[in-house]
Structures are given as C-alpha cells and as structure tokens.
C-alpha cells in the first residue's frame, strides 16, 4: 500500500528521538485517530539547525515525520512555516488517500514547534 520512499522512511526513519534542550516543541494528533507526532527543533539565527521527532502512529505518520525532518533541516523559520502537509506527502511520492487526513500532520507539528519557539522568545 505504501510506495518505496515511504517504506524507506518507515524502515530507516531519520532524526528520531527526544532532544535535550530544544528551542521549541510541537505536538499534534490525538489518540482517537491514533497518531501523535512530536517535533523538536533547535533554532539558531532564525535557522532550524537541528530537528528530531517522536511519533506514535501508523507507517504514514512515521514516514511523514521522518521526511519532514529532512526537508526542514537548515531552512529558515519562514521557509519552514511555508511547508504544508501536502508538500510532505508529495516529498514522499504520495500517500494513500485514507492516510491524507489523520496521519499526514507533520507540517502542523513543525509549525507548532516554531510557534512554541517564538512564544518562548517573546516571553
């Protein structure tokens, strides 16, 4: 059901794990639909220097999180904010229709992490 890119990210997910002292953390999803993604970012000079994820979810959720971390690393916050869930799915070469809604939320998690970072900055 998944293409090779998705399966590669599912089998060899990039940038897994909790981050010590992240600049921002974003979490999306809920247990009802069975996907919870957590994105950790380290920001330096407006650039995402490092990014990690933890995901409870299906193959699509894990692969989306993984590919997002690759898409984002080294990008400015503005560039990162422009990334959409759709772009993440495209980067994976597409996801099954049924997975587009629940499991393809990595960009949302990223945006939340950036928000979190910005709130901390202004606090």
């Amino acid at each position: 059901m998944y293409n090779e890119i998705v399966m590669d990210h599912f089998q060899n997910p990039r940038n897994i794990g909790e981050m010590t002292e992240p600049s921002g953390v974003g979490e999306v999803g809920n247990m009802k639909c069975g996907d919870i993604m957590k994105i950790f970012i380290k920001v330096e000079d407006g650039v995402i220097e490092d990014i990690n994820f933890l995901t409870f979810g299906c193959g699509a959720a894990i692969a989306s999180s993984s590919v997002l971390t690759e898409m984002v690393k080294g990008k400015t916050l503005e560039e990162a904010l422009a990334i959409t869930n759709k772009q993440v799915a495209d980067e994976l070469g597409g996801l099954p229709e049924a997975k587009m809604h629940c499991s393809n939320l990595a960009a949302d998690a990223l945006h939340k992490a950036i928000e979190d970072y910005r709130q901390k900055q202004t606090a």
Partner: protein
Amino acid sequence: MKRIYMDHGATTPMREEVLEAMLPYLKEIHGNPSSFHSFGREARKGMDEAREKVARALGASSPEEIYFTSSGTESDNLAVKGIARALSSRGNHIITSSIEHHAVLDTVKHLGEEGFEVTFLPVDEYGMVDPKDLEAALTDRTILASIMMANNEVGTIQPVEEMARICHEKEVYFHTDAVQAIGHLPVNLEKQPFDLLSLSAHKFYGPKGIGALYVRKGTKIKQILFGGGQERKLRPSTENIPAIVGLGRAIELAVENIPEKSAALTALRDRLFKGLQEEIEDIRVNGHPTQRLPGNVNISVAYVEGESILLSLDLKGIAISSGSACTSGALDPSHVLMAMGLDHQTAHGSLRFSLGKENSEEEVDYVIESLKEIVERLRKMSSVYKK
C-alpha cells in the same frame, strides 16, 4: 522469504481436498440445477449431497433446513432482516450484542433506522455477553435475539446455548453467527436450540463466496433478495454449484476430530501467548482467558500503533491483523475493543493472531522473536513511550 500466515480469522487457504471436490463442477458438470435435463440433474445431485453434508455436520434434522447463500454476511443479513420482515406484525424489537460482526450489527442498526426498536447488549472486559442482560432486555415486542457464537476479533466464546433457552422461554427466535466457530467449536443443532445459524466456508478452509444459513423447520422467515425460486424461494439466483460442493466437503472435514484439532491449536495459541508475555513488556491480553477460540490470540502492545507493527511484521513475511482503525480505513479503532472498555491507545495498539492448521511451533517462536524486535524499535520512536 518464507512467509507465515497467522490471519485465519480473515480467511483461510482452501484445502486441497476441497478443490478436488470442486474441480468436476468447475469443468464438465456445468449445468444449472434448476434445469430439467441431465445437465441440470447432475448439478442438482452435487448440490443435494452438499446440503446433506452441511446438515449432518451441524446435526440439523433435515437438509431442508440448510439454505445456501453467497457468504457469512448474506446469511447474517438474511437471518436478521428475514425474521424482521416475517414477524414485523408480531413485534418490532430486536436484540443483539455490541460486539457482533458488522454483518449483524449494521443490519440491526439499519432496522433501527427503519423504525425497529433495537438493543445492543454490553459486554464485560473479556468481551462476554451476560445472559442476564439478555433476559432483562426481552419485552413482549421482542422477535429476535442475535448473538455470535465466538467473536472474530478477540475470540471470546459466548454462552449462546443458555441465551437461546432464555429466548425460547419467551418465544423469541435466536440466531447465532457461527462464522468463526465452525471447525473449532462442536455444533449440534439437535441439542443446541438455535433457530438460525450463519456460516461462511472460507473461514474453515472452504471456498470464498459461499455461505449457508441454517433455519430450523417451522421458523418464519422471508427472503431479502428477489428473483427465481431457488433455495425454496428464500434465496434466489442460479446456484453456485462448485462453491456449494466445496462448502459441503469443507464442513465435512472441518467437523472431523474437533477435540484433537482444538487441543493442538490451543497448545500453539498458549505458546504464543506465553512467549509474547515473557518477551515483551507492557502488553495486555484482550478477550477471555479460557473461553476463547483455540486459534485466537489478541493482545494490545502499549505505546505503539498497530498498523506500524503490522507493516513491520509484513516486511518479515508475517501476516496478522489488528484492531487499529488505520488498517481498516475506519475512523475509530475496533468497536469490539471499545465495547470491552479499552482506551483508544490500547485499542490502536491491538494485534490479532489467528492460528490455523498449517502453523507450527517454529513459526510461533519466530513470530515472538520478530515482534519483540519490532516493538523495541517502534517504542524508541514513540511519542507516548513512558520510559
């Protein structure tokens, strides 16, 4: 890659003996059993023999109590809706359980939308219906109770005989969905007072696309499909002779030596349960500890989602299923697990292994080892893992 199939609850491979029985009917014996001529008669002979085999396997008092349908789903729909149509002038209340297969559950819900009163009995944490709840739910408007013999997801075996007796005291028909039970639990309709019973051949090494409904003589029921006069007008359409013959052969084989086969499968099942519990932390057994189908193992693995486990197992050639919504295209996880009181996370992390006659101890051990490795790996990337 060697592949391991532990999804017999979804469907089973067809036995060679069954295909052998079917082949003449897929080749030279091609007539329509309703036809008047020799081609029709030879087809009818195959069908009559198959009907006798099914009747014998179930302990039915006559082959005339057996009606062939296209599947378990159709048998369930026919039982529930056919009784509702026949008895709507007598009453409009139907009782079922909250853990039925959708073929019963959604048919009852549909009748509810059409104006029937419907009751969905709860289950306990083991997925067991309490006969007292059934008794309490009966009213003088009740016409039918439908409770499955064994649950397809968690394997829990229901006290259907007791429930049938309770219904009969109030002159209420009792239907049981035995789709998962045939070949695993002994059925003897001489002693078990069910009025209707559904079965589906592909769940016991028979062909797909063929089922049967047992209807006790004298039971009032109406057709739900309209057409020719086949199956004594209860189920029209040109009979699927090859599949009917296959069903006959499959059930004959399925009911042979049930005690021995069940004991062997139970031993394998318990080896799997034990191994999983010893090797993997934080797993929960779903379903009843003892009142369960011999081949059924259902667990919830904490902190990980079912589909990602299935996907990983599939990469190792291991085929099982899960109660995760993600594997069924549904929005919510299994209604069975939810009815048993599981929370969403636990339900999403549920796995069903359904063992069959080809599975071996080596396969079981390989599956335990593989799952252990997979769970460790997935927990490492889980956002909800607590350690």
